[in-house]
């Protein structure tokens, strides 16, 4: 399988995209680009469910074509999709689905992904949408391609179209033991097929390539260092750029002396109103020149961690709040009045950083008025639009290429480095690379929102929950509704003004809302003196979630285990974005140091038919490990417009020594459509840890992180260490 990068560069060398503006063309002209073969396009995307997410201009749906697939005369299959690979293994699993429907070996497929000149428009890679939406789209075009090839063969052999069948990259005529490879069938042809209707897809129970653990595409390139990440791209004559950062958020420049920097050999200072940067022939000199700037800033007094949660409640984003509660049933007031068991609690989550190991990076190159940028982003088309707007050029003049990157976890939706590199490249008249430092990534990217959550509940003595009121301030509405059966509910998300720039994160607010809900359910279970699992199952009827609870509990040995002051067991679960998750935790707490050590995690997971079991297991394990950070120790500390812990030495992330024994139990529902699995695996751990801490010590921690490195100001100090 050729990498995206090689292919993209190859096509660029042939100057294909320069001579033909893809989206301006009539679809029939696509074939000129491929000099023949079979091209299958998916149109009329309204047949497909919309991508979820907040508003993205008028691009709610792909306007015209959402994906295409080409079969060349040599039998090579190339699939074009705007989705991107960020470590979630979608390059491999989408190729598996195509190979399955097209009936070709996996290796015959090349995926071209996230290149705005070569792939159809796509909103972005987030929200666990690639598997449930792009998966069926690609399966549809692959199936249509297969049918077209069969029809072509039938015409050649002069047999009814129902006679031939496809297998292993060939069409076979069983009556005469004739066969033609796909390449033979497309050679000399100029076939374009557009599909818009749903076609009959191969059911998961009959899958032979999909549903298996095919290793990561191009895996070898990752152990040899050959794979080129965005920060590894070089261009002829390329220079290196750095950008001057203010001393704090909302700062204004008081004075700037660039004379020392300008004296350095080969250094060019670029100043365009607020934007101040520097380029040099080598990265080291560019860094020195930046340090040589003498800048004075005025940083206004600003909110700190200490005042954060008060500010959330006092600063609603009024226009959004008017939309009212997400969900209301029955009467919470009446039910609360009648409930013999009542609880009211508050929960908090802090801002945390994605800290992808590869920070933001971009290489920008102008050729005339055409801009090409290689950058790491989950939204290449969004970044293309950002660039077009920044430089007031039409989007057709901007090409964004996304080499498979050093991950994002929801943190790379934006194109800061791309715009910076393009600005510097324009001023320098040369290609320019910009790679953010770790400190820049920790400070000038965006954060997972902090949140304040209030839950009020009422239950009968037999454990039936009858009232549930859940308010989330700022962190978000994802998974805010309860999966439990409660007759009387008010559930509301309150958007508020955030002192820090905030955005997407793996699982979004599903982590915060699950932490609050599943901690609270545990508190209720203890209040009615029921086993936490039994209590949950009593209030649950969703069969998928029940099955996942049972699978996790069984593997874990729940019910046979009794917590002691130094060893706690906890359980929590839920569902979001089509994934069902239950997490069981065993942890140790040192009696004197109060150090919490997670020893064992069992997580059961179900998201419909599994496309790649090994890839899925890897994702779920990764989500569990990442969740440990947010649960126990990750928190952004900030004061007066400055991030106080913008280094790995101060902002602790999970390491080998934090990693428990992890058992992932996968439930393969071949009868159900496949949902995405990159995110929701993260949501169960934090509440399960909190519940295990309570089971051991009788102390309930309602603030995430539960055992921070340094106490977060404004929050009740946790008695626990990590």
């Amino acid at each position: 399988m050729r990498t995206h990068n090689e292919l993209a560069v190859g096509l660029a060398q042939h100057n294909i995209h320069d001579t033909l503006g893809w989206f301006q063309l009539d679809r029939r002209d696509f074939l000129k680009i491929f000099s023949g073969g079979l091209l299958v396009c998916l149109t009329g995307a309204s047949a497909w469910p919309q991508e979820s997410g907040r508003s993205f201009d008028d691009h709610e749906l792909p306007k015209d074509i959402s994906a295409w697939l080409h079969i060349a005369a040599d039998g090579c299959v190339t699939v074009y999709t705007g989705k991107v690979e960020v470590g979630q293994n979608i390059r491999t699993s989408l190729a598996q689905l195509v190979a399955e429907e097209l009936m070709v070996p996996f290796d015959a497929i090349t995926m071209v992904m996230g290149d705005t000149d070569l792939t159809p428009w796509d909103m972005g890679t987030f929200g666990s949408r690639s598997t449930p939406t792009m998966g069926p789209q690609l399966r549809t075009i692959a199936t249509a391609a297969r049918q077209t090839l069969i029809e072509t063969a039938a015409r050649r052999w002069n047999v009814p179209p129902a006679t031939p069948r496809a297998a292993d990259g060939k069409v076979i005529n069983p009556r005469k033991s004739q066969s033609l490879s796909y390449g033979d069938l497309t050679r000399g042809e100029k076939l374009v097929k557009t599909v818009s209707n749903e076609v009959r897809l191969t059911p998961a129970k009959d899958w032979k390539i999909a549903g298996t653990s095919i290793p990561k595409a191009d895996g070898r390139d990752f152990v040899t260092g050959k794979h080129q990440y965005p920060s590894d791209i070089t261009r002829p004559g390329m220079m290196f750029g750095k950008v001057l950062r203010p001393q704090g958020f909302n700062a204004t420049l008081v004075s700037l002396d660039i004379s020392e920097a300008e004296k350095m050999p080969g250094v060019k200072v670029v100043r365009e109103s607020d934007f101040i940067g520097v380029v040099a022939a080598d990265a080291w000199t560019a860094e020195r020149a930046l340090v040589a700037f003498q800048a004075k800033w005025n940083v206004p007094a600003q909110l700190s961690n200490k005042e954060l949660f008060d500010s959330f409640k006092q600063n609603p984003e009024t226009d959004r709040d008017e939309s009212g509660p997400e969900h209301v049933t029955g009467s919470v007031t009446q039910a609360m009045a009648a409930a013999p068991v009542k609880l009211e609690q508050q929960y908090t989550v802090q801002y945390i950083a994605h800290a992808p190991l590869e920070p933001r990076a971009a290489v920008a190159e102008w050729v005339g008025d055409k801009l090409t940028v290689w950058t790491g982003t989950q939204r290449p088309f969004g970044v293309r639009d950002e660039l077009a707007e920044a430089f007031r050029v039409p989007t057709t003049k901007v090409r964004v290429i996304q080499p498979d990157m050093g991950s994002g976890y929801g943190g790379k939706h934006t194109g800061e480095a791309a715009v910076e590199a393009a600005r510097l490249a324009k001023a320098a008249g040369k290609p320019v690379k910009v790679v953010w430092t770790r400190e820049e990534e920790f400070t000038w990217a965006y954060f997972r929102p902090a949140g304040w959550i209030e839950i009020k509940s009422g239950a009968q003595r037999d454990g039936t929950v009858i009232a549930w009121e859940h308010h989330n301030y700022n962190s978000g509405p994802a998974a805010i509704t309860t999966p439990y059966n409660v007759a009387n509910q008010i559930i509301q998300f309150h958007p508020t003004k955030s002192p820090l720039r905030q955005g997407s994160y793996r699982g979004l607010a599903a982590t915060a809302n699950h932490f609050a809900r599943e901690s609270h359910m545990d508190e209720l279970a203890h209040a009615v003196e029921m086993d936490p699992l039994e209590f949950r199952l009593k209030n649950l009827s969703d069969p998928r979630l029940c099955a996942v609870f049972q699978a996790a509990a069984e593997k874990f040995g729940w019910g046979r285990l009794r917590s002691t002051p130094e060893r706690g067991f906890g359980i929590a679960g839920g569902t979001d974005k089509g994934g069902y998750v239950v997490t069981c935790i065993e942890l140790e707490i040192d009696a004197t140091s109060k150090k919490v050590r997670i020893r064992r995690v069992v997580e059961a997971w179900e998201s419909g038919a599994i496309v790649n079991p090994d890839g899925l297991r890897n994702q779920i394990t990764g989500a569990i490990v990442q969740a440990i950070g947010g649960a126990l120790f990750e928190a952004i500390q900030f004061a007066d417009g400055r991030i106080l812990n913008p280094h790995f030495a101060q902002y602790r992330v999970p390491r080998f020594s934090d990693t428990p024994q992890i058992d992932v139990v996968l439930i393969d529902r071949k009868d159900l459509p496949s949902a995405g699995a990159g995110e929701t695996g993260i949501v169960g751990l934090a509440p399960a840890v909190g519940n295990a801490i309570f089971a051991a010590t009788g102390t309930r921690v309602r603030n995430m992180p539960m055992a921070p490195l340094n106490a977060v100001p404004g929050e009740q100090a946790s008695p626990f260490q990590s």
Partner: protein
Amino acid sequence: MGDLVLNINGANLHVNAPTGESLLSVLRNRLNLTGTKYGCGEGQCGACTVLLDGRAVRSCLTPASVAADAKITTIEGLEQKGTLSPVQQAFLDEGAFQCGYCTSGMVISATSLLRTTPNPAEEEIVRHMNGNICRCGTYPRILDAVKRASQMIAKGGSR
């Protein structure tokens, strides 16, 4: 500016770099050996790990001039005549990566560990590798890969 001769992956390479420039910067930005990664520049993540005379060092904190007397091995230098080193092969076999950005540093760190401790206990692996961050959280697989590499070496694989 100073003229340096660096012995990298068995070849003597001449570079002209200012005194004090880090080995990482020289490798990536002057020699285009981009397999070695930048993750923090502060010695905290291990993405930049290379071998100096077989010992793992953080190239972001090592001035290139200091490395001039040593044999430098980067991730690009582990494969021999198209054959992956046992550690590389073990990472591939275990699928011990997601985005793979930490992999170069992990492979190099594990290589140095197995050189001195061919059959490490799990705690030894954790202690040795704890300076390497995998933000994708593939630690359990990396542990398995290091154990597998150890077995491969015991069965006669090189290094």
